[in-house]
């Protein structure tokens, strides 16, 4: 399996590229689900995988559809390995690790867009340049969507339209994406004709 294809749509929609090991003093690798495969692929291409791993801290959690490749990553023998059960459980650890990161640190994000977006948001909040962060989307295309009306975020959205898990409005899913919120935008689909909600279609898996 390779990089999840993203149809080129609009300019706020994130784009991704295969990870590549670059020189650095500390490699923070943050991944979920199938993202582990992006990491092992990168290591296969790396000129000095053992040297890279000696400076690597893995933060990993299973993907939104249940894929758990923890064992494979742990077996690589990196400097540090941490497995969280979910993304919300992973983020506090990331925030702590970021307080020790410095300008020579390199960031590798791989897996679902929800994981990549939230990790990128937290890394950028600490002032690291965008250019120090690599992102490879693998596996699930489920979306993290903010309801523009109530502001609640619904995780793992599969269908379009879907029902906001906070206010219950029927929302259609836009490609418009906020890096600050790490979320796509959801807008009420029957605002003009209340009750006329088209049938939901599975768009994200």
């Amino acid at each position: 399996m390779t990089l999840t294809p993203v149809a080129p749509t609009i300019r706020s929609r994130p784009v991704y590229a295969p990870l590549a090991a670059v020189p650095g003093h500390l490699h923070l690798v943050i991944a979920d689900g199938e993202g582990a495969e992006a990491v092992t692929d990168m290591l296969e291409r790396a000129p000095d995988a053992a040297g890279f791993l000696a400076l690597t801290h893995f933060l990993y959690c299973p993907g939104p559809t249940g894929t758990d490749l923890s064992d494979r990553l742990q077996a690589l023998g990196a400097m540090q390995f941490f497995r969280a059960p979910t993304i919300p459980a992973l983020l506090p650890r990331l925030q702590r690790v970021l307080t020790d990161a410095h300008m020579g640190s390199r960031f590798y994000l791989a897996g679902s867009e929800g994981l990549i977006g939230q990790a990128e948001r937290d890394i950028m909040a600490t002032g690291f340049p965008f250019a120090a962060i690599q992102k490879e989307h693998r596996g699930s295309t489920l979306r993290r969507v903010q309801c523009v009306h109530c502001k609640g975020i619904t995780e793992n959205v599969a269908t379009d339209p879907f029902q906001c898990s906070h206010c219950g409005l029927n929302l259609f899913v836009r490609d418009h994406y906020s890096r600050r919120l790490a979320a796509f935008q959801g807008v009420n689909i029957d605002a003009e004709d209340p009750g006329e909600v088209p049938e939901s279609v599975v768009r994200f898996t």
Partner: protein
Amino acid sequence: MSLDYKFAFSPDHFDGFFRDETFRGDFTYRNTDPRRFPFPFDRDDYMYAVNIEPHVPGRKGTAFEHLLDVDEHYIAEMTDRAKVLAEDPLRCQSLPHMELAGWDVLELIMEAKARDYPQWFSLERDGNRWRWINRPLGIDESFTFLDASTLPYGPFEYIMRQTQGDWTLQDEREGTLWMDAGIATSQADWSLDFDIGMNFHEWHAPVPMAHEKGIFDRALKFLLKLQHGAPVRRFNWTMTVNPLLDTAPETYPKWGTMKTSVTPENIGRKQHLRVELQSLYRLPRSNAIAFDIRCYLASFDEIVTVPKWGRRLHRVVRDLPEELATYKGFIRNRPLMVEWLSQYDDGAPTSSGWFADD
């Protein structure tokens, strides 16, 4: 400063200049003189372009007479803004590094208003000790410039509660502009809360056709060269049912059904052309760029009192590409609009330029 300015409106206040009117509920908003309206079409068709020109004072008696136009709707608009902010404070946000830009824009606005409208506004300065008087809103404030603790709000929100138009402040970094502060209570259906922190190409992402035409690449290049003291302006426009200033995505479930209320009988009164006179200023201390999106509304009934505008609006709406009518949110009512406007189009040629009498 109170949230809801409680002026006892009486006809003799300020010679009865400011209208006591609403942008919600009973919608009593009207234009006393439609010819003052900044009609945005200088020809009979419309397509996106890098339509940027110097923002220099224009004809007397138009919205272009002064750098910042203060018109008969001032008090009513500020009252509406205070209500929106009370309901949803997320409509005004400023990322922490934008405070200096907030002071820059406060200075720009206070200076311009005190200079151009001395009968309503005055600014006295003794070093950093400033005294600002805003007579229409009943404000007399003494504060220390660059010391936010001396104002009841942050500098940006303070001045925005006294200024018509939505404003955003853009920080310049990495060869682009970042929308890092803003206020949006009279916006054409975009969310400040969602867009804040985005760069120029990201917040423009939903716009159809213009990216492909290279319009945003060229516009950004132009803006990065913007100089302090040489502001520029451009027009944008859309359509709104009822004179509803706050067409926010946040409240779309509340106002969306208004779009279905238009009939051949009420369209002249209900359907409004919504024009944004946008101006851009490079700020001196922060090097940020301030973007003013000033919204003007005129009903179709008011527009067609100027024969040239009636003819032209008919042709523009009729021939607008479908993508634009859809993006601007009036595709469902376009047939009704074209039908009604056609009564005011005798097919005669129109003169170029947007002024009523050209």
